[in-house]
């Protein structure tokens, strides 16, 4: 049996999280096929075929797949899912929306958001927002699994030459219509994939004071995050929120400024490689997860921090 991975893309290129999911899928079974459902997405098919871990690309090309609609994708997947032991995709908003619909129609109890493949039927997954880890074994004959992208390295993208097989489209759903998508454009790296993230909390005291964060972010080419308290107080918009109810981030460096470290925030950042906390309250829970803690008034520390960074000429862009 082989495993089938559902690719996420925008008809021009593969979305990065699909490459992390490919790595996880190949750990379940090396005979990995990728299903690409799209419209005029030949370039995507070609780039997937060049991923060395991919053994075969199945390509369904039809105008009804110009926009991603879970109902239409599900019908297409079910048409071709028969001969696979596992159906896999990334556990971001794409896969979270799609996979349960597929699993229900196959009468499979899905395993969501795994962070480790222990064996082809046993996986490690976080529960309670990462406050506990569960080792789970699926007893369904066929398995539907979603992958937490930040827990697996991205697959290599060059050197492979998998066969591309064209497949038929399925019926279109009459009851769901795509209207539009507003992508938030920014010159900064995206919060979910940035190498460095600097986040502000209620300690910033106002939206204007977030400028202190922005200045450091500019210098470090970092994404800007925030605690739920800062978002609720209106200092910054909610797409910056890091935490259980916001985004989960795993950067190389996470700098928490004026953030006390509520459970809900820690759940979104504590897997970061290196954590820095700057807070004037030495007892703040954020210090319990910080590699480097600086007990200081952020209004003095941040300008100094920027000054020290300016003295270094080695910031990696």
């Amino acid at each position: 049996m082989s495993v089938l991975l559902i690719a996420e893309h925008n008809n021009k290129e593969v979305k990065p999280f699909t490459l992390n999911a490919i790595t996880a899928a190949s750990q379940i079974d090396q005979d990995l096929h990728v299903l690409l459902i799209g419209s005029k997405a030949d370039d995507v098919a070609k780039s997937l075929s060049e991923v060395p871990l991919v053994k075969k690309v199945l390509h369904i090309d039809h105008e009804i797949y110009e926009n991603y609609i879970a109902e239409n994708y599900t019908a297409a997947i079910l048409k071709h899912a028969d001969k696979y032991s596992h159906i896999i995709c990334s556990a971001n908003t794409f896969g979270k929306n799609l996979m349960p619909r597929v699993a229900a129609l196959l009468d499979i109890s899905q395993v969501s958001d795994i962070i480790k493949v222990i064996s082809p039927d046993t996986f490690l997954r976080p529960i309670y927002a990462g406050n506990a880890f569960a080792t789970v074994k699926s007893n369904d004959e066929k398995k539907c699994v979603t992958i937490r992208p930040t827990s697996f390295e991205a697959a290599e993208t060059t050197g492979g030459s998998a066969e591309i097989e064209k497949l038929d489209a399925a019926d279109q759903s009459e009851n769901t219509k795509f209207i539009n998508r507003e992508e938030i454009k920014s010159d900064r790296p995206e919060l979910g994939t940035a190498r460095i993230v600097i986040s502000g909390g209620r300690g910033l005291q106002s939206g204007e004071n977030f400028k202190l964060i922005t200045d450091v972010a500019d210098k470090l080419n970092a994404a800007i995050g925030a605690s739920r308290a800062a978002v609720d107080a209106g200092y910054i918009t909610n797409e910056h929120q890091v935490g259980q109810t916001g985004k989960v981030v795993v950067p190389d460096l996470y700098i928490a400024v004026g953030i006390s470290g509520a459970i809900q925030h820690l759940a979104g950042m504590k897997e970061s490689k290196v954590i820095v906390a700057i807070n004037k309250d030495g007892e703040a829970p954020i210090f319990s997860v910080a590699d480097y803690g600086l007990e200081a008034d952020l209004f003095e520390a941040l300008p100094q921090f920027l000054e020290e960074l300016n003295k270094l000429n080695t910031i990696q862009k």
Partner: protein
Amino acid sequence: MKILVAVKRVIDYNVQIRVKEDGSGVVTDNVKMSTNPPDDNAIEEAVKIKESGKATEIIAVTVGEEKAQETVRKALAVGADRGIHVKVDGTIEPLAVSKILKKIVEKENPDLVFMGKQAIDDDCNQTGQMLAAHLNWPQATFASKIEVNDKSLQVTREVDEGLETIEVNTPAIITCDLRLNEPRYASLPNIMKAKKKPIEQINASDLGVDTNPRIEHIKIEEPPKRKAGIKVASVEELVQKLKNEAKVI
């Protein structure tokens, strides 16, 4: 228009989870329980739609042990008209919950089903999509804005890239994001009134749904602890450590 809202009883989001020493689960004895947070948004949205005159009845449903009824009672206190409690003991997976909810939908014939996008205990994020699949209804997940039209809804969804808007014909399933609205608190008079509202009890076993778990929980453990960090005395020291020790800048 009739709206069914599904709610789940979970450990309160402010509680620090403790893992049982034998690895069999997390401690729930004497722990504060509440309605799953985005389920509160689901109830709130249904009540708002009813207040705008576009819905006539709201039914709150939960699937779970005896005490799960508390979440239905709370939904009644903020504006649901009546409740249904499907009783089942022990672990129940989203697949089984979705099959039970399908039976309730077939019995009640709602035009819309609302629920939270994800429960904060098992973090599965499955039930709404699975129910939509069983019913062959359209799904609008992670909703942060809902506009109700005559025979359809326009739903803005929170997606990785930003916001996506789709239109779904009714009947439809909507799963709610925390950004959808600000749930209200129940007033004391409404809590008293809610005590008189009816809650129908149904045994899951009477619905003919197989609720046996398909996934075995082999072990529940604490996540690996981060190694203890250090406090630095100054910004200069911090920058030096980041550059020379951690090598991240």
